[in-house]
């Protein structure tokens, strides 16, 4: 299956906890959920919205007061989820439902733990199943369950599908945290793939544009100046010039080099575009525009960093066009 020129592919996992302020209306709504109460808001037209609106859809005014609804309600529409996806409220097959809570005129979307599609119907009476560990989020309702079923169901994936993460999280009034985890299959372009394969062999590969003659490293596949495909492969030397740089003084989680250190734009000899890399092997204060540097290879087919060669600095004119 694997062909030496096929683009490289690899799983890409992205995780981020979105921390959001709730504002005055949703703060009250979430605080009430922690007390196992559900709040709605009465609009100018007299209809009760649950969950509450932040601004009245008719008048754009904030709600005057919030009113308790439910907690039981009636299914208005539903769909069946035979194979739940990561992060959804239940790991076993369940129904998504629009639920009109008693006393409300609008519906709320949530999961219903009905056991089977045959047990679901529009008009079904449901009640919330509350989490044991409220976190100030809509996930404080684990799901809904049929009113005519046994109470105290225990199914549910927790706030984010990870009970341990939910447990260590503290409730901050007025804030809510939503963990987002996405899974991609990332594909490198043919040019990037050739570049990465070259690195594994200790070679630096670029591409030349057939129109303007510029050499791009890493290869881009397309000349960004001319918008035409680039296919001529060019091997470049390990030496280059610092065109510009900055000194990193700020620490961050996962940082591999202790600040202060230099992140620089390095223009390889024969290339027409600089790329960013570390310049180590000298005091950060010694790095300067025009400094000549050479690649220092790491163990796993990649460049660890660039280090000064000790040659005289390159003349400004030799790299000015790449600034």
């Amino acid at each position: 299956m694997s062909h030496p020129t096929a683009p490289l592919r690899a799983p890409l996992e992205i995780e981020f906890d979105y921390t959001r302020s709730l504002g005055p209306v949703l703060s009250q709504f979430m605080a009430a959920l922690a007390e196992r109460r559900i709040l709605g808001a009465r609009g100018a037209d007299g209809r009760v919205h649950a969950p509450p609106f932040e601004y009245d859809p008719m008048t754009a005014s904030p709600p005057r007061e919030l009113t308790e609804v439910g907690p039981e309600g009636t299914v208005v529409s539903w769909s069946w989820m035979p194979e739940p996806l990561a992060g959804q409220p239940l790991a076993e097959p369940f129904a998504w439902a629009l639920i009109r809570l008693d006393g409300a005129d609008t519906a709320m979307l949530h999961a219903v733990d009905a056991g089977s599609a045959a047990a679901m119907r529009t008009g079904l009476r449901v009640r919330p199943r509350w989490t044991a560990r409220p976190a100030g989020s809509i996930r404080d309702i684990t799901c809904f369950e049929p009113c005519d079923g046994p109470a105290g169901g225990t199914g549910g994936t927790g706030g984010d599908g990870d009970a341990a993460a939910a447990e260590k999280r503290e409730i901050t009034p007025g804030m809510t945290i939503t963990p987002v985890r996405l899974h991609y299959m990332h594909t490198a372009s043919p040019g990037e793939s050739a570049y990465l394969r070259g690195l594994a062999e200790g070679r630096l590969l670029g591409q030349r544009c057939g129109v303007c003659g510029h050499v791009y490293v890493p290869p881009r596949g397309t000349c960004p100046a001319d918008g035409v495909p680039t296919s001529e492969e060019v091997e470049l030397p390990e030496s280059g010039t610092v065109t510009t740089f900055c000194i990193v003084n700020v620490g961050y989680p996962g940082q591999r080099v202790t600040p202060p250190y230099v992140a620089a734009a390095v223009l390889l000899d024969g290339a027409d575009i600089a790329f960013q890399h570390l310049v180590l092997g000298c005091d950060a204060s010694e790095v300067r525009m025009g400094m000549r540097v050479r690649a220092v290879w790491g163990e796993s087919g990649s460049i660890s960093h660039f280090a000064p060669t000790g040659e005289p600095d390159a003349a400004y004119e030799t790299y000015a066009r790449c600034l």
Partner: protein
Amino acid sequence: MSSEVAVVGFAQSPCRVREDATTSGVEMLVPIFAEVFGATGLTRSDIGFWCSGSSDYLAGRAFSFVSAVDAIGAVPPTMESHVEMDGAWALYEAWAKVLTGEAEIALAYGFGKSSGAELRRVLALQLDPYLLAPLWPDSVSVAALQARLGLEAGRWTEKDMAEVAARSRAAAMSNPDAQVSGSVAAAELLARPYLAEPLRAHDCAPVGDGAAVVIIASAARARELCERPAWISGFAHQVDSGSLGARDLLAVPSAAGAGRAAGADGVEVAELHAPFSHQELLLREALGLGEGVAVNPSGGALCGNPMFAAGLARIGLAARTVMSGRAGRALGHATSGPALQQNLVCVLSGEAS
């Protein structure tokens, strides 16, 4: 300032799952730019304004649209913009640029690698971030809630939905860019299992990757670029509430409003962006399309729905029926958000107003 702007060129890539394509869109865009420039005789230096539609959530990285700019050749610097929406909204921005005289010729493009992640799950992130997205309601399940409301209200049957799918697939047999096509009876489709009851696989657009490009020009330039330009006689977009449970999911007021504002009356062809079978039925009604209107002669989004390009492609396909003389008046529609939340209508005419 002239109020006359016309579509003068359109191209799209075939909708396919492309394991070997990056999320930057460059590989899909370079060939269709070459195609549309070849057809119009334009070069990139003729384009006064570029606007793209794409999404970082599809790409799995920030500022992903910047990589796509490689495909347009932006040296020397050019006037360029981006919307985190379907390319149809990029075309709307481009149309405004030409209307205001800031550009004579503008190019809009949209691209999406829908297959890079689990699309229906990624689309949960377009929902209300406080009350909905933390539950990860996927796009298919949300559409299924809308479909059931219509079924139980007697607005349509599962057979009606299957007939939309069967007719779309048959129409797509003459569309080489379609991802799904074929001759299949509605009864046969109805025998297949549910994907998200009440939706079956045929009720849902396939997941596919693709790109589309449309070039528009002012009246002064359109006639020299195209024998029969597709004049934009109306262009409007509207949005409904983001609160899924508070809006009437069977009403689609934003589609009806955009249709009225754009002047949808009297069209002969309509390319509707309906990623779910029942949504075509909702849109036909909201836009007031009668029996005589040819709906989705391309097969529609049910036969190929490259995210962030499919709406723009609907406008391009509608324009193509006018440019080729097959229709005097055609409509292109695009949707965005859950359960037809946001809708755009572009009406194209063979006659300048």
